[in-house]
C-alpha cells in the first residue's frame, strides 16, 4: 500500500508535466486546426534558457525563471510569425510540415550551441523533499503538482470567465464569424501561441531537474503529451489534463510492477489500446462543438 501511494504521487507528478504540454497541444490545435509538432521543443528551449541564466550566468533561480518565461512568451510570438502566420491561409499540411521543420531546427540549433552532453539543472528548493507518513514527497514533484493545479484553475477561469477567453473560444469555433463580429482573429491566434509556449516552457523548466536537460527531452515529453491528448479525447481541454495525469500514473506503475526498461513503452501500449477500442478518447470528441 505504501508503495502504491508513493508511485501514485510520482506518477501524478510526471503526469502533470504531460498534462501541461498536452494542454498546449490542444489549445493550438483548437485555434489553428493544426497539431504543433514543435510543442515539445517549447519545453526543451525553456529548459535551456534556464541553464543559460541560472547555471551559465549564475543568476538567482527565481530571476532566471521569470526571464525564461518571458523569453518563452517572446518565443511564442516569433514562432507564430515565423511558422504559422505566413501559411495561415493554406491547408493544414504545409503548416504541420512547417512545425516539424521548426522542431528539427530548434533541436539542432541547441545541439550546435550546447553539444550532445545533457545539462544539469537544480530544483527550485534546497530541501530534497519531506516524509509524510509512508510517502516521501519529492519537493520538485510537489512544485510540479502545485503549479499544474494553479494553471488548470487559471485556464478554467481564463476561458470560462473572461470575455477574452470567450473570444478565443469563438475564434477556435468559427474564425470567419469571429472576424465578422470584430474579433481580431490574428491577435487571438497570437495570444494562443504565447500562452501555449509559456505552458510548454513551464513544463520544461519544472521537469528539467527531474530529467536531464537534453535536446531529446522535448520530443520525449511531446510524444507522451500527444498520446495523452488522444487518450483524453483530442481537442478536449479536460481530456488533455486527465489523459496526461493518467499516462504519468500508468507508466510509473508499469515501470515499478512490470518492467523498468519498457517504461516508455507503456504509454504507447495504452495509446494503441485506445486507438483500437475507444478512438474518441475518454471524453470523446464533442462533435457538436465542431459543427
Amino acid at each position, binding site marked *: 500500500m505504501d508503495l502504491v501511494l508513493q508511485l501514485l504521487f510520482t506518477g501524478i507528478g510526471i503526469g502533470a508535466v504531460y498534462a501541461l504540454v498536452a494542454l498546449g497541444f490542444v489549445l493550438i490545435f483548437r485555434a489553428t486546426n493544426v497539431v504543433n509538432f514543435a510543442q515539445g521543443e517549447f519545453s526543451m528551449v525553456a529548459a535551456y534558457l534556464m541553464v543559460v541564466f541560472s547555471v551559465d550566468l549564475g543568476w538567482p533561480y527565481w530571476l532566471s525563471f521569470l526571464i525564461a518565461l518571458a523569453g518563452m512568451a517572446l518565443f511564442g510570438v516569433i514562432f507564430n510569425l515565423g511558422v504559422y502566420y505566413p501559411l495561415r491561409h493554406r491547408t493544414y499540411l504545409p503548416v504541420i510540415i512547417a512545425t516539424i521543420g521548426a522542431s528539427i531546427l530548434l533541436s539542432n540549433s541547441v545541439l550546435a550551441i550546447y553539444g550532445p552532453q545533457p545539462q544539469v539543472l537544480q530544483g527550485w528548493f534546497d530541501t530534497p523533499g519531506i516524509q509524510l507518513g509512508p510517502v516521501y514527497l519529492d519537493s520538485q514533484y510537489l512544485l510540479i503538482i502545485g503549479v499544474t493545479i494553479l494553471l488548470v484553475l487559471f485556464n478554467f477561469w481564463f476561458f470560462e470567465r473572461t470575455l477574452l477567453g470567450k473570444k478565443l473560444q469563438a475564434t477556435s469555433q468559427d474564425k470567419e464569424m469571429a472576424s465578422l463580429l*470584430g474579433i481580431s482573429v490574428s491577435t487571438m491566434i497570437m495570444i494562443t501561441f504565447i500562452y501555449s509556449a509559456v505552458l510548454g516552457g513551464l513544463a520544461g523548466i519544472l521537469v528539467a531537474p527531474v530529467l536531464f536537460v537534453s535536446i531529446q527531452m522535448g520530443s520525449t515529453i511531446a510524444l507522451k503529451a500527444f498520446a495523452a491528448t488522444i487518450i483524453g479525447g483530442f481537442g478536449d481541454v479536460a481530456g488533455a489534463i486527465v489523459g496526461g495525469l493518467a499516462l504519468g500514473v500508468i507508466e510509473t506503475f508499469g515501470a515499478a510492477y512490470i518492467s523498468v526498461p519498457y517504461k516508455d513503452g507503456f504509454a504507447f501500449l495504452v495509446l494503441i489500446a485506445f486507438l483500437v477500442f475507444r478512438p474518441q478518447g475518454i471524453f470523446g470528441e464533442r462533435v457538436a462543438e465542431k459543427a
Partner: protein
Amino acid sequence: MPLLEIRNLVVRYGEIEALRGVTIAVEQGQVVTLLGANGAGKSTTLRAISGLAKPASGDILFDGHSIAGLGPEAIVRLGISHVPEGRRVFPGLTVKENIMLGASNRKVGASQISREADAMFDLFPDIRAFSNALGWTLSGGQLQMVAVARGLMAKPRLLLLDEPSLGLAPVIVQAVFRIISQIRKDTTVLLVEQNARMGLSVADHGFVLETGRIVLGGKPDELWGNEAIAAAYLGGHAKTHA
C-alpha cells in the same frame, strides 16, 4: 447621399464571376431587400460589403467613403454588421455569450456589454429562457434570434441580414420578420431573401439579382406588378427591365 452605395461591383471566386457589375444604393433608414434565386449572387453581395469577399473591381461606399478591400474586422467597426447565412452561432458558447461577443467591434467594458445583452432579451423574449444554453442545443428559429441579437449588439448603422427565413417554420418566419420591422426604427437594413413575399413586406425598396446582375429594382408595389419577378425567383430568364 445614400448610406451605402455599390457601384459596378465585380466579385470572382477563381474562374467564376459571382457578381458581374452590381449597382445598388441603400438610403439611411430604409429596409432594402435583395431578391433572387439560388446562386444569383445575393450572399456574395453581402459578403463583399462586410469584407469576406474581395471585390475584383467596382466600389463600395459607406457614408461616402470607400470600404472596398477593407477586412471584416475593420468594416464592422465602421458600423456594418453582417448576420450571415446559416446563423453561425458559436456552438460551444452560451446564448448570452454569443450575444455579448456581438459587441466586439466597440470599446466597452464587459459589465456594460453584459447589461446590454440582458436588455437585448426584451427585443427577443423567446430566447431569454435559453440564456445559459449552449449554441448547439438550439432550434433553427432560436439560432436565428440569437444571430440577429448578436448582430444588433454591434450597434450597427447598417445591418446585413442573409436569408433569415431559411429553414424556419412559417410561424417562426413571421416572428423573425416582426423583429425586422421593429429594428428598422433605428437601423438601416439590407435584407437578402428567397421568400419574396416576406422579403418585400418589410421593404422600402427591392432589387432582383439574376446570375450576378441586378435585373430589376423598385418599390415593392412596382415589383409586385412585374411578371418577371416570379420568373427571376424560379431561376428563369427574365430579361424584362422595370
